[in-house]
């Protein structure tokens, strides 16, 4: 026990005496949350648009005001000629142009039918689709508000966005960032910490001492497990208080399952460290072999349902995928263990598997 305590104390010294490590451990989660929360968002907010209004009558002006007032769009300029549309889109200053035909109010009231043209810059197709959807929904809304009583039969779809009514990107990326940060702290930092001892030759002395190899591994990883807990707490606090993202499920369950994932990552870190002898290689394997699949195949960036079948199959082998599902279900949908036991079981199985292999592979001997 005394050995264990001394070892952990030594490990803390390593962590806190290296500024770069401290920065990665504590700065990274905060920076990632802030970057994903405010910079890297595919939500549309105050997109600049232009308007070409041929009618300029009461209703058309009302419609345009309504669009301008919404938080999604800003009317950047009013055009006078059709030839300006191409110019203004090419300049890149506006992303969409709304064209209102002549006699807007008149056509509406007489024929109950009028077309409005939405011309979007589709060089970024996702963004264009989003703009188009928002534009359509505002126009539909407008139409309902003013003409519903005049249209005899109409089927109005009532859309409800469950769990995330405001369609906030944070609902998707907070679980993703949690998986990424745990991967970084637990896998990369642990593997580097163990390999560092090999590189500096101190592992040779540790192995020639009465310390049991298992004790060496456990004492090397415990501090990182604790740091993972701190990081999870930081991320959750940031997402609740800075990003206004509520935790709908049990916080306790969320933290416990995050620790389970942290242990999965730790065992992967030990596994990496036992098969390499240099810090650079350990870092490369962690980044290329684990970090990238976490981003690409966990469903965080790209929906797994849209992937070709082989990729969907491979994604099942990525531990982060299961953790990502768990966090989404518990945090956002507010589900309990009863609904996610399958995912938890898979993650648990993976953890045991990696833990057993990595401890078995950790050598009693050098080389």
């Amino acid at each position: 026990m005394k050995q264990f305590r001394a070892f952990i104390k030594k490990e803390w010294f390593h962590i806190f005496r290296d500024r770069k490590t401290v920065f990665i451990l504590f700065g990274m989660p905060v920076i990632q949350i802030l970057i994903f929360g405010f910079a890297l968002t595919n939500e549309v907010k105050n997109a600049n648009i232009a308007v070409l209004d041929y009618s300029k009558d009461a209703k058309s002006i009302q419609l345009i005001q309504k669009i301008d007032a919404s938080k999604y769009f800003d009317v950047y300029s009013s055009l006078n000629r059709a030839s300006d549309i191409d110019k203004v889109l090419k300049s890149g200053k506006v992303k969409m142009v709304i064209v209102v035909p002549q006699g807007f109010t008149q056509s509406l009231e007489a024929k109950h039918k009028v077309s409005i043209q939405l011309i979007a810059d589709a060089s970024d197709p996702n963004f264009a689709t989003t703009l188009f959807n928002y534009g359509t929904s505002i126009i539909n809304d407008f139409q309902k508000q003013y003409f519903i009583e005049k249209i005899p039969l109409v089927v109005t779809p009532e859309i409800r966005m469950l769990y995330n009514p405001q369609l906030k990107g944070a609902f998707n990326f907070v679980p993703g960032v949690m998986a990424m940060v745990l991967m970084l702290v637990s896998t990369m930092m642990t593997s580097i910490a163990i390999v560092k001892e090999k590189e500096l030759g101190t592992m040779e002395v540790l192995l020639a001492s009465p310390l049991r190899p298992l004790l060496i591994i456990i004492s090397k990883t415990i501090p990182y497990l604790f740091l993972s807990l701190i990081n999870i707490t930081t991320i959750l606090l940031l997402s609740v208080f800075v990003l206004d993202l509520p935790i709908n499920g049990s916080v306790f369950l969320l933290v416990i399952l995050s620790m389970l994932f942290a242990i999965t990552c730790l065992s992967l870190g030990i596994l990496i460290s036992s098969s390499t002898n240099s810090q650079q290689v350990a870092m490369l394997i962690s980044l290329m072999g684990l970090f990238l699949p976490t981003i690409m195949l966990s469903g965080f960036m790209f929906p797994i349902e849209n992937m070709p079948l082989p990729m969907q199959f491979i994604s099942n082998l990525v531990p982060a995928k299961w953790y990502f599902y768990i966090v989404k279900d518990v945090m956002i949908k507010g589900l309990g263990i009863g609904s996610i036991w399958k995912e938890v079981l898979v993650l648990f199985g993976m953890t045991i598997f990696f833990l057993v292999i990595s401890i078995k592979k950790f050598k009693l001997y050098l080389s």
Partner: protein
Amino acid sequence: MIFAKQLTKSYKTKTEEVKALLSVDLNISKGEMFGVIGPDGAGKTSLFRILTTLLLADSGSATVNGLDVVKDYAKIRQQIGYMPGRFSLYQDLTVEENLQFFATIFNTTIEENYSLIKDIYEQIAPFKDRRAGQLSGGMKQKLALSCALIHRPVVLFLDEPTTGVDAVSRKEFWQMLKKLKNDGLTILVSTPYMDEAEQCDRIALIQEGKILMNNTPEKARASFTEPLFAIRSDNMYKLLHDLRDVNLVNAAHIFGEYIHISSPFINQETIVEELKLKGHNQIQLIQIDPSIEDVFIKLLTHLESHEQISE
């Protein structure tokens, strides 16, 4: 205390198999200071790692303090002190923290065995709050030795402890080792420096995984029976070439500012005359006693000529 029989170890690389040890036998008694002397790559580190249970030999057996290095590795790890070739200290921990850490992992305290390391540790104690990474080579070496001794081991393994350390620190270090030896500690030490061999009770000269000689330094030197001379002139490079052409000279090797030559029936005047004819001036020729290095080089040249014959 340390006993090895037919130890063999080889490493496989992609292209070839490197033989690190070829049937090495050792028998080191309690309280002895035993030196393993040989150049880099001779197999010294492999031998040390096998004896400290860090590496498994391909074949052969070894015991340390009566314990088998394979079966009883855990027990051996409690009894030995090991200082690897590189100074294996935590660079970001202070002198005191390093010592404290190693004391604790060996289930002891600094206070308990302070008497053993007192002389060594007192020299670095003024710097006890300094990080180990900022110490000079000599001080690092003293700290590493303190850490290896803190649990009062029965055998001390020192793998090239003086490599990369200045001459004064090297001398001090050997004095410390002698003192430890006088306290009854068994010490196995390796070094590439031949002059340090004289400090040991017994030495083994090792080259390419083979032990060429295992003897006391005195007996090793006595095995060099031919008369040995040191010679110099105004043109050393030409001298070496010319000496190898002189029939009477058996071997000529550069040793610092002299060339050592040996010959069974040497005639000093003849050699000087012959060299003068070849245009050398300021020739100095003195008979000397052989050093361990002379012995080692002679053994190596024998080995090479044998190999050439067998090929």
